[in-house]
């Protein structure tokens, strides 16, 4: 396996970067979509049923089916990476809407009442108080979505889209196990990098969590 890595180092790295894009960009897009949806889900119980229930259902669509269906819906070619980006965004939304709704729901009622009493408008309250306090829980959901995305993206190798999953399909066909192992380890390392990165960002933007009573 080491000799395979040594011989294909630049190929592995470029595939890893492609893989990171395909998994990471949908993470950001999915978060951006989930925040307003999660906020809406908190506004009324019927909205919650539709949004949380509906988005969770999306996760049950098989990934290969979604990759194949996407060109029909958005008029792209089958090998266009945009298909993967959109499909992965849908999976991220599926995982995050519930998390965002729950995270916002976990903000203490006292804090929320105080914000209302101070004269916050609903939008400013969301960005100034509720969202910052929801960050730790949302971040936990984001870590799950990140790992899930890295894994699901490798399926796109079946469609010939460049990323780390290629080593799994190619190695399997050639019965070349060093290549398969390389693909697995590379995916693991990538998932780990995402996880550490999300944790680090969370740490930086929630300094009050580290405050110790003095």
């Amino acid at each position, binding site marked *: 396996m080491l000799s395979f890595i040594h011989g294909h180092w630049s190929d592995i790295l470029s595939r890893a970067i492609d893989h990171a894009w395909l998994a990471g960009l949908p993470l950001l897009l999915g978060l951006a979509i989930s925040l307003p949806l999660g906020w809406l889900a908190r506004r009324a119980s019927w909205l919650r049923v539709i949004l949380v229930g509906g988005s969770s259902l999306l996760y049950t669509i098989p990934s290969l089916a979604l990759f194949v269906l996407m060109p029909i819906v958005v008029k792209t070619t089958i090998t266009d990476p945009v298909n993967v980006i959109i499909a992965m965004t849908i999976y991220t939304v599926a995982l995050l809407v519930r998390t965002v709704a729950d995270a916002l729901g976990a903000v203490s009622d006292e804090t929320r*009442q105080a914000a209302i009493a101070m004269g916050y*408008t609903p939008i400013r309250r969301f960005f100034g108080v509720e969202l910052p306090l929801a960050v730790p829980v949302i971040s936990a959901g984001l870590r799950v979505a990140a790992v899930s995305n890295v894994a699901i993206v490798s399926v796109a190798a079946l469609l010939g889209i460049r990323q780390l999953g290629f080593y799994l399909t190619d190695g399997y066909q050639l019965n070349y196990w060093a290549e398969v192992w390389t693909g697995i380890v590379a995916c693991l390392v990538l998932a780990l990098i995402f996880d550490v990165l999300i944790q680090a960002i969370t740490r930086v933007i929630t300094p*009050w969590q580290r405050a110790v009573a003095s």
Partner: protein
Amino acid sequence: MIRFEQVVKIYAGGQTAVDDLTFEAPTGQITVLVGPSGCGKTTSLRMINRMIEPTSGHISIDDEDVQSVNAARLRRGIGYVIQNAGLFPNKRVVDNVATVPILLGAPRSQARTRAREVLELVGLPGDFADRWPSQLSGGQQQRVGVARALAADPPVMLMDEPFSAVDPVVREQLQDEFLRLQRELGKTIVFVTHDIDEALKLGDQIAVMRVGGKLAQLADPAYLLAHPIDDFVAGFVGRDRGYRALTFAQTPALPLAAEPTVPLGTTPQEARAATRDGWLLVADHGRPVGWVEPEHITAAIEPAMLHRGGTVARATGPLRAALDAALSSPSRRGVITDDDGILLGTVRAHQVLEAIEATDRPEVDEADIAPAGPTSRADR
């Protein structure tokens, strides 16, 4: 002035929280809403800043109907202190306090400067401003809560059981500082509590509410203690009403007897020569510090020998303190001082009681003399 006019709040479930509430909270004074849980006091408070909308009736601040003002803008002009402080955990203390000025459009640096000033005012100087709320004690958080409500200098403040979540010693301290602050600032305050002693201590005016959201009695503390309108109010105000009412009665000129004193360091021989009845008052530069029994001392008088049981009353203080000074004194002579703590003389319990008998009690308001039957004024 805050005015409630026939305010009714019926919740969606059909439960009446506030029933036909009419009263005024005068400008610059503290009006306390007090009553058992379920009497609608918090609901009433939250209708003032429209966190809850009334089912019918009107609430106005300085003759302006609160319904006619945008809710968020209205709230920025009203200070609000919540139980457990309700600080924003994600904002440093200084930014918590700067919240309302920033919402009102003040530049951040200016709002923070103002926040630091107000923090100093509530007794949290210097580096407290840069801490996170989780790094403060309950009492300190509550002070920050008060500072946050004061930061934009609103004329009106609403306080919902602000001191009930801290221990009794801290509570008393916060109450005293709150009264001192109010003497300086003169805000129009509506204060909600379930604790009648807190109501009597803080209120210029007290509205006692009963379960079902009805106003039972509205009066100043002395009147409430002297003339509770019915069994409910009498029971709620509690025992020892006569004695507690003395808190609100100014001490008249008492017949003070001159009391000989000796300084610290007096020898036993000198002390025995100075005493008249076995007890001798020790004073330090005119300030009474305690009693000694010269018979029982064998060395020069030092602080550790002093009997500390006796309380000291100021001549300008309430009658309750003067009576307590006489009752608690080991020599049965109550120590009375001037406002600077300098000894004026002593007084005996029977003399204080004579003074009490000579003082006027609050006169019964004609309107409070209930007709036959159990109805009270507010129910009619």
